[in-house]
C-alpha cells in the first residue's frame, strides 16, 4: 500500500488475515496443533496431520520465500486487474511451515523462485457501505525495511 487508506478497510472474507494500522504489516491467521505442533493456514480445529482435537491460534508471516509463481492474464475475481497486462500469482513458504497461495504485487520482472517475500494488503474495490474491500498478497521483500 503506497498510502494509508482513508476509508475503513474490511477483508474480502473474515478469518484469514489481520488488517493493521497504517505502517504495520498484516499477519495471517493460523493454527498450531497442541499435540504435534504442526502449523496450518487457514485456521482449523482438528489437526490435519495427527487428527488431535484442539489447536491454538497463531499469527503467521509477514515473511516467506517464493516457492513458485506465474504471470496470469485472466481476470482476477473482484477486480479488473487483467486489463493492466496481467498480474502475478505465487506460492510462498512461511518459516512456520504452511505454503500459502496468493496474488503477488510487482511487475513481471520482479519475481524469481527462492526470493524473500513479505505480506501486504491490496484494495480490490469498495462495498456498498463505502468500505474498502482488501485481500492479502505478497510482494518482494524491500531491503532493510521489513514491513
Amino acid at each position: 500500500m503506497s498510502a494509508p487508506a482513508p476509508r475503513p478497510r474490511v477483508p474480502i472474507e473474515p478469518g484469514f488475515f489481520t488488517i493493521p494500522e497504517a505502517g504495520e504489516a498484516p499477519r495471517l491467521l493460523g493454527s498450531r496443533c497442541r499435540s504435534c505442533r504442526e502449523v496450518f493456514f487457514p485456521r482449523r480445529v482438528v489437526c490435519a496431520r495427527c487428527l488431535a482435537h484442539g489447536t491454538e491460534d497463531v499469527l503467521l508471516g509477514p515473511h516467506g520465500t517464493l516457492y513458485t509463481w506465474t504471470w496470469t492474464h485472466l481476470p482476477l475475481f473482484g477486480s479488473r486487474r487483467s486489463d493492466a497486462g496481467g498480474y502475478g500469482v505465487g506460492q510462498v513458504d512461511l518459516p512456520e511451515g504452511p505454503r500459502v497461495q496468493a496474488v503477488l504485487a510487482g511487475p513481471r520482472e520482479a519475481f524469481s523462485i527462492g526470493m524473500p517475500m513479505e505480506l501486504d494488503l491490496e484494495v480490490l474495490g469498495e462495498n456498498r457501505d463505502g468500505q474498502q474491500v482488501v485481500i492479502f498478497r505478497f510482494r518482494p521483500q524491500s531491503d532493510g525495511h521489513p514491513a
Partner: protein
Amino acid sequence: MKLEGVALLGVGMTRFASHRARPLAELAREAGLAALADAGLSFREVGEAFVGYVHGGAMTGVKIMKEFGLTGLPVTHVENASATGLVAFREAAAAVAAGRCDVAMALGFDKMTDMMDAAKGAASRGVGRDQIDSVILPAAYFALWATRRMHERGTRPEHLARIAAKNWNHGALNPLSHRQPEHRVTVEEVLASPMVSEPLTAMMTCPVSDGAACAILARSDLARRVQSGRPLVTVRSSALQSERYTPGHTFVGPVVGPSSMTRDTAREAYEQAGLGPSEVSVALCHDAFANEELEYYELLGFCAEGEGEKWVEEGSAELGGRLPMNPDGGLIARGHPAGPTGLAQIHELALQLRGEAERRQVPGARVGLAHLVGGGSVCCVNILCRE
C-alpha cells in the same frame, strides 16, 4: 476396489462441443440411448443409475433420468468436480459387483457454456467476490505447478506445447472431439497462441464444452450372453482417493493437491487389478492443462521420475508411440464439460479395447487406464481389460 465379474456392456456419448441451443436433457438422452443401444439392452433392464454433473441444482439428475422412462429404479447423484464421471462409473461398477443389480448405468452431463454465462452474470452483478477461495482461477494454480517443474527439471515450454499439439492432432481423428483441427497442429502454433497463465497458452488448456456420456455395466456372465460376438471388456479395478496431508500443503483455493495423490491412487488401482504400468496399452489422463499430462507420465508409473521430458521428446505418448495417451484428444481437444468427462474416457477405452477406434486405434490394445483429478482434491483411476 478390486472388481470381479463386472463388464462394460455399452457406451454412448454426444460430441463434446458448444451446444448452447440444445437442452441438457436432450444431450443426456442422446448419450444414454446410444449406450443402451450399444449394450443391446432396454432401459427396463437397468437396475440402478448413477448420475454425475457439476453445474445444476438439486434433483437435476433424477429429473433427467425420467427421459428414459419411469421404472422406479434407484438413482444416486455423484459430484466430484472434474472426476465426477469416473466416480459415477466406479459407483455403478460397485453396485454390480455388490450384487445390488445385474445392470447399472453411469450417466454424466454438463453445459460449461451455461456455467460460464452464470459466472459472467454474477461478476457483472458484483457477486461472487466475497470468497477468498475463488479469487484466483484454476489455470494459475496449474501454471504454478509448471513453473516449479521448469525450475527443478529444466522443462521447456516446447515440452508442454508438444503434448498439447499431440492431443489436438489426436482430436482430429475423433469425430466426437470438440476440437477437430483441419491441419496438423504444430508446437510453434501452440506456443504462439495467447498466453493464459505463464507458461500455459490458450492451446495448452481445455475448451469450454457441453455434452453427455454414458456407460452401461453388467455382470460378466450376462454380458457374455447378450454380446457373444464381441470382445468382452471388464472393469478390473477402481481406486478413488482424496488428499493425504503432506508438509507444505495448501488449503485455500482450487488447489492442485499433492502430486502423491495420483501416484498413490494409481498404485492402489494397479495392485487391485493385479497389473503393472508396463502392461497398460492405452491411457487417458486429466490433461486440462498440458503440464499435467507431463507429470502424470511419471505419477502413473509409465516412466521413471524425472524422465517425463524425455518421454515427450521421444513421442512415447503419441499414437504409434510406446504408450499412447489421450488418443481421443484428451481434455485439451475432445473437451471437458466436467460431469461427462470421465465417461467419455470410458467411451474411448471401450472402443480401443474392442478394436473399434478406427483411425486412432492402438493396435492390440488389451489394458486401458482412465485417470482424473477433481478440484485438485480427489483422484480416480480405473483399469479396464479386454478378456
